[in-house]
């Protein structure tokens, strides 16, 4: 065994071992990178140097700012307004509240960018509302958790910023635009699934559609939705970088939450920052440690070796694309989203580009795969939250989610094999 192979074995083997030994993933990443550096004859100081380099990226600053914006808007009473808007738009359909849940997630996702926050915030309102209206609790929870994944695709999404920074050379603006149609496709796919189940179980319809009511709700929600406009339009038109627009959006969210919606007091704002710090505590150290891990991967030519291996299995574009999805789905079942993006992007992106998948499209694929992973046992943070918020045992939620997994897989396959779904909107900007 060559020295390089041994180092690769130490890096990947020790990482997997430590993950299964329940060592926190951020630290497992750091320790395995340290062991690998030592095996390569590098000084342990390289670990610290790489960690500082990894986190010293101005683009990455958008991550804490987007998280802060989501928390401020989420705690500032935006959820009720977006639900009312969605209700005015799609509440008239059969299974109206399920449709409302799905559409509200599309709007809310644009603001929070987090499936977990979406489930906790919308779920605590929508699930009781649905069960009171005669929907089964497990169905209501399943709709809530699956639709929350739209938020990962609809911009601005901090996970997309993490991907763009890890991939290098990917335009955050283009990636933001690329997320809109796949997010809508996922929503439509879930709405079709919900409609079929609603007809079978005879779930009720809501109030008939009235344009006046819709316009009224749109006006109320305008201030919240404008935060998304500031970010997306600012970045796409090149007026701001993603980081700058996210900082401005935080200040805007603060003004909207405190002075316009009056959902937060200044004391509440100070407390909300604690929630932001709690979330950032997990994400930022992971980014720092993953930088050292990525340094080792590159030094050991792991991406090239992985590409050679996978391209050696088959030269069919379809088979390789399916393999990439399978790998990401499998990892999604056992790991959280940010570590998967940080660790697999340097390895899998070269393979994806070698079969003609654009890095932007691959970004959407990776986010959607990880989103599905958040809903699958054994490690499914959103599944746990849905179970707790919906007060339904996890096993029952998983059973009720089975038809929706199918809807999500259909959306994933379409996103994988029809590049235009992801690439059409960004292509308009070129």
């Amino acid at each position, binding site marked *: 065994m060559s020295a390089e192979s041994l180092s690769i074995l130490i890096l990947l083997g020790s990482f997997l071992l430590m993950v299964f030994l329940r060592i926190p*993933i951020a*630290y497992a990443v750091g320790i395995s990178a340290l062991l690998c550096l030592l095996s390569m004859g590098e000084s342990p100081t390289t670990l610290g140097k790489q960690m500082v380099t990894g986190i010293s990226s101005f683009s990455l*600053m958008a991550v804490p700012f987007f998280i802060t914006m989501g928390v401020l808007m989420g705690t500032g009473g935006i959820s009720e307004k977006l639900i009312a808007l969605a209700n005015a738009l799609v509440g008239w359909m059969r299974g109206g509240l399920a449709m409302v849940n799905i559409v509200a997630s599309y709007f809310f996702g644009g603001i929070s960018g987090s499936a*977990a926050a979406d489930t906790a915030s919308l779920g605590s309102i929508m699930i009781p509302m649905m069960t009171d209206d005669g929907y089964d609790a497990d169905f209501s929870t399943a709709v809530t958790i699956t639709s929350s994944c739209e938020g990962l695709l609809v911009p601005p999404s901090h996970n997309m910023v993490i991907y763009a920074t890890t991939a290098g050379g990917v335009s955050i603006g283009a990636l933001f635009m690329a997320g809109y149609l796949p997010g809508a496709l996922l929503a439509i796919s879930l709405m079709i699934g919900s409609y079929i189940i609603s007809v079978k179980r005879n779930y009720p319809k809501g109030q008939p559609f009235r344009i006046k009511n819709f316009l009224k709700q749109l006006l109320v929600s305008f201030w919240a939705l404008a935060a998304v406009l500031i970010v997306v339009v600012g970045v796409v038109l090149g007026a*701001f970088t993603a980081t700058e627009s996210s900082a401005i959006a935080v200040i805007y969210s603060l003004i909207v939450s405190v002075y316009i919606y009056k959902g937060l007091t200044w004391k509440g704002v100070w407390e909300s920052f604690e929630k932001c710090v*709690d979330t950032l505590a*997990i994400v*930022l*150290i992971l980014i*720092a440690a993953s930088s050292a891990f990525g340094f080792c991967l590159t030094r050991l030519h792991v991406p090239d070796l992985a590409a050679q291996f996978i391209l050696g299995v088959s030269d069919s574009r379809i088979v390789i694309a399916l393999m990439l999805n399978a790998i990401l789905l499998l990892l999604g079942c056992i790991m959280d989203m940010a570590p998967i993006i940080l660790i697999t992007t340097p390895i899998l992106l070269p393979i994806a580009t070698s079969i003609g998948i654009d890095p932007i499209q691959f970004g959407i694929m990776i986010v959607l795969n990880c989103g599905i992973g958040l809903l699958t046992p054994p490690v499914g943070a959103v599944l746990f939250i849905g179970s707790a918020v919906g007060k339904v045992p996890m096993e029952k939620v998983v059973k009720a989610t089975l038809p929706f997994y199918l809807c999500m897989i259909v959306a994933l396959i379409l996103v994988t094999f029809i590049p235009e779904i992801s690439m059409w909107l960004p292509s308009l900007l070129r």
Partner: protein
Amino acid sequence: MPRFFTIADKLKPVYDVAYRVIMTLCKLLLIADILITSWIVISRYFPKIIDAPIWGEQIVLTLMSYMAVLSAALAIRKGSHIRMTALDRKMPKKVLFSLDILADLAVMALGIVMLVYGWRQAKMIGRFGRYDSLPWLSRFWMYFPIPLAGGAMIIFELESLYNHIKSAFVKPDDGPTCGLSESELETAAVEASLDDKEIKEICEQADPSHTEDDKEAKKQ
């Protein structure tokens, strides 16, 4: 042994104060980052009203490094770092206990390496390098977050290790759990940005019997 824990528990308020101080510092660092970045944007579009801070980008990044490492240490205390919890329900309690101790020791070992070698690195770079935009400021401060992280990790890991060992001797109050394991509950609480009180309320609504049983047990 219980006597030892009674004495050692007297350190808990010190840790509580340290936690509150570091949390406040992290919040202030985040707010400073937001304000400086906004300042950069505003000064670009209104240069006549406000001067652009040439040091802005480098300082923002340095502040973020400090926030990242300090908040990560706080997450050790809260036990909120992402970890593989899939097999928790299936594992015997003794195995889980051993793995918790192993994880504490592994993180502490990493903390020691970061403290010792990070300090060397920061000192070496600080001797020669200065910030480009602030020539009077040593680059030592850019690399200092690494040994700082190491030190903070060791301090909070010591407490975590102590709590894990204590749990082997003193049975903790589990509280209502929504049928989820302890680590699943932690993941749910952190991912959804809910605090302990909120998650407890949700679980109490889901499982009121537990609360009643709990009260009954306490009465007895």
